[in-house]
């Protein structure tokens, strides 16, 4: 008779494995594994290590796509309704963990599982349904070709409103390597998770709650939730409430940290017209929140045709300054089309900007594609979403496009490990430069928040060194925990002693006697596990690097001073980062580091 281990409070201790060909089964997640990786990105990374065959093609049936929930999901703690989606990225070939929010997180967890692994492939368009009755596959032919939002609405009409749906758009169906998976208009956006699902012929995953899960100390959880809610109304989150992340744009422009025209410049002459300060004054807008959130960061603006689009800094940066487009109507329309097609706006904007430069240099035969041309931007998005014309090439992402073009195109392709750079200029944010270079996921601003140090005034943001390395490590560790708990990063400013307070939140739900020190070890374990996955898939030190342009071309600041990031400076920071992480000079974990984090068998 098999023994059953009692799951810690806050967890079901259950992993649901759905094999689209052979059926599904549940297995136990041990309390120790849950404590070691918590949930969200941490747990998802560990499960990917365990469930993905080495060297697997991310678009093959054997490749797993993993939904993970977390102990805080379903509690009244503000911003905790989040889930992670983890897979090997078809864009980077590295670990890819993307977050998404709202009701799917709560319903997904209350199916009675802490994680759901999907592998295999269906013969035709399919919706995967998980509810109290178990797992079933339903035909989804009539959903194929629809936007994720339309598919979600149709499926909920069919199944009932208690079902919550994660779906892909046309880009995922056509295996665009940076297709998103979305729920309720929010995207697990980066790294091509929509293509992983599309390759399995799965249009949507629907979940309905059927179980409950207790907290260890419900009264304490409510007390902490009340405190946190109050803090979420304070100054630390005011920017997100009042203007949203788009508030970054004009400030970044003034600081020469706004990547423009494929990183040729770091400030944009059209920034004012795209700014939150101006858009919020000139246009009607509405605000929205995820489930269980008291911040309400989403600022929704109308497009020219009267439909609505969520506006964030990253989509405006990528589809505006990055492509040299200053017309807000075009940028909002471009954002809307990316949403409808299911495209990651950062990778779409980055790849199109790169293509614009290639076309202007005569490296790409596309005379219609030029910086600043809004119509060209919209045409490129449309073609990418359905892999038509030039879009079939651009759907591969800037790294593969550069390889196809050859010559010197790779020197100005805006990616790290294949993932397009977000809107943070590395030459003028040199802690962030390191964060972008070494991040296991590729160029990413959510797994490394080192820009915080650059913009704090505590460091010289133009001259990276040891203090910048320490800041990059610290912010990477914090992100690993926030993304595993899971809480929204927009709440981060509300914590005076983050690790200590997060340990307290986790203790109230799980009953664990968990310290700040243990959580710090957990953070390092999660970061290490990601690196181990990449290592197994062929990563080398050369992949921890930045585009040649960033290292060889200076940026002229508004003061006239030039900002540079010399190669040797980046090498020095990476060396020190490896040392702090317990890695050797090739970036490989030492046996002692592996043993200290319980990963010696990997």
């Amino acid at each position, binding site marked *: 008779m098999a023994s059953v281990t009692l799951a810690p409070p806050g967890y079901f201790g259950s992993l649901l494995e759905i094999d689209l060909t052979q059926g599904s089964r549940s297995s136990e997640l041990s309390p120790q594994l849950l404590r070691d990786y918590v949930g969200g990105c941490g747990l998802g990374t560990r499960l990917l290590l365990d469930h993905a065959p080495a060297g697997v093609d991310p678009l093959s049936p054997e490749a797993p796509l993993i939904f993970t929930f977390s102990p805080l999901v379903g509690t009244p703690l503000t911003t905790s309704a989040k889930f992670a989606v983890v897979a090997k990225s078809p864009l980077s070939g590295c670990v890819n963990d993307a977050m998404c929010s709202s009701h799917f997180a709560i319903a997904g967890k209350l199916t009675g599982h802490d994680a759901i692994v999907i592998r295999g492939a269906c013969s035709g368009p399919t919706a995967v349904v998980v509810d109290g009755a178990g797992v079933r596959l339903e035909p989804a032919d009539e959903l194929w070709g629809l936007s994720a939002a339309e598919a979600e609405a149709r499926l909920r009409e069919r199944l009932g409103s208690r079902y919550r749906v994660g779906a892909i758009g046309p880009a995922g169906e056509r295996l665009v390597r940076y297709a998103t998976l979305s729920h309720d208009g929010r995207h697990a956006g980066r790294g091509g998770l929509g293509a992983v699902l599309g390759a399995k012929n799965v249009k949507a995953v629907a979940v309905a709650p059927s179980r409950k899960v207790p907290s260890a100390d419900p009264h304490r959880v409510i007390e902490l939730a009340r405190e946190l809610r109050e803090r979420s109304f304070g*100054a*630390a989150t*005011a*920017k*997100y409430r*009042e*203007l949203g*992340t788009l*508030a*970054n744009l*004009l*400030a*970044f422009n*003034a*600081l*020469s940290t706004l990547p423009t025209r494929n990183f040729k410049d770091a400030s944009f002459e059209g920034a*004012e017209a795209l700014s*939150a*300060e101006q858009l919020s004054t000139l246009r009607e807008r509405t605000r929205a929140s995820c489930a269980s959130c008291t911040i309400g960061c989403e600022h929704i603006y109308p497009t020219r045709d009267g439909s609505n689009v969520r506006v964030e800094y990253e989509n405006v940066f990528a589809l505006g300054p990055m492509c040299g487009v200053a017309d807000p109507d075009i940028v909002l329309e471009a954002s809307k089309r990316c949403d409808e097609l299911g495209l990651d706006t950062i990778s779409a904007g980055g790849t199109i900007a790169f293509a614009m430069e290639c076309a202007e240099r005569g490296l790409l035969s596309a005379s219609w594609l030029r910086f600043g041309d809004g119509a060209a931007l919209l045409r490129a998005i449309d073609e990418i979403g359905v892999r038509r014309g030039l879009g079939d090439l651009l759907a591969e992402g800037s790294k593969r496009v550069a390889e196809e073009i050859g010559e010197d195109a790779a020197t100005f392709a805006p990616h790290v490990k294949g993932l397009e750079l977000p809107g*943070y200029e590395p030459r003028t944010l040199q802690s962030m430069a390191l964060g972008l270079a070494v991040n296991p996921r590729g160029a990413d*601003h959510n797994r490394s*928040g080192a*820009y*915080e140090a*650059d*913009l*704090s*005034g505590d460091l*010289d*943001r*133009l001259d990276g060194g040891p203090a910048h390395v320490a800041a990059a490590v610290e912010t990477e560790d914090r992100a690993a925990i926030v993304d595993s708990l899971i809480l929204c*990063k*927009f709440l*981060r*400013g509300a914590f005076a002693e983050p690790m200590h307070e997060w340990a307290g939140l986790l203790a109230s739900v799980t009953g664990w006697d968990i310290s700040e020190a243990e959580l710090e070890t957990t953070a390092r374990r999660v970061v290490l596990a990601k690196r181990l996955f990449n290592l197994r898939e062929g990563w080398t030190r050369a992949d921890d690097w930045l585009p040649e342009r960033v290292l060889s071309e200076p940026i002229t*600041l*508004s*003061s006239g*001073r030039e900002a540079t990031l010399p190669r040797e400076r980046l090498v020095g920071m990476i060396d020190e980062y490896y040392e702090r992480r317990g890695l050797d000079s090739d970036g490989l974990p030492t046996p002692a580091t592996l043993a200290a984090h319980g990963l010696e068998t990997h």
Partner: protein
Amino acid sequence: MGSSKAELTWHGQPFADRIARLLIRATGGPLIVVTAPEQEPPPLPAQATVVTDAHEGRGPLEAIAAGLRALSADAVAYVCSTDVPLLHPALAEHVLASADTETDIAVCETDGRLHPLAAAYRARTLPEIEALLAEGQRRPIALFDRVPTRVLNRSALLANEAVARLDGSLESLANLNAPADYERAHALELPLIAVERFGLLRSEGSESSTRTHERAATLGGLAKAAGIELDGHVVAALNGEQVTTDAALPLVAGDRVSFLTADGGG
């Protein structure tokens, strides 16, 4: 003046602290402050290195030697006294740039008077300075005949666009030697600073335009004048470069300060 000049203040900021911070702005550092033996150093920024004269009472040449000894052999240093709170970094930058590879010293001159404590010195002049000191010389002017020296008169100084625009009356050279000098310096208008507000600070500001102007000597003074509280939620960027929360940051004519919320990114 009745007290150590270094401890005098200009609009609340000690002379030495202000001048040291302005020189760091102009040069990027390192910054050497020379004091007399057993003299308590005045308030200084953390980046300052304090050295003392090897011999007391041997005048400015001894002090210049002490400072140059603390620098690398290929360095070129802007040297000034601690009684020039109206120093503008643009002038120091211009003087330093004038000390080209063929020039060991670039020194300012106004109305026929040389300003050896408003000059750029190459560290390679140190042997000549040591020799002069050994001969009992105390005045830097004696050095100018021994090494290649470039004299920058008023028109040479004002030929630089930034100096002409930002310090047209060459207040950078104004030593405050007497109470009357001190009073005159305080009677001058404070530097005019361009102020930019971003995000929530713009909507909270009294002006709707992108850029306004205020007069202030320091970042703290500017924030107060602009009605902005430099608390943990607000940072400032000086001329689009470094981000700071340092209220003592000295400001000079032509500066542009951008105020933004501290939670940039995300």
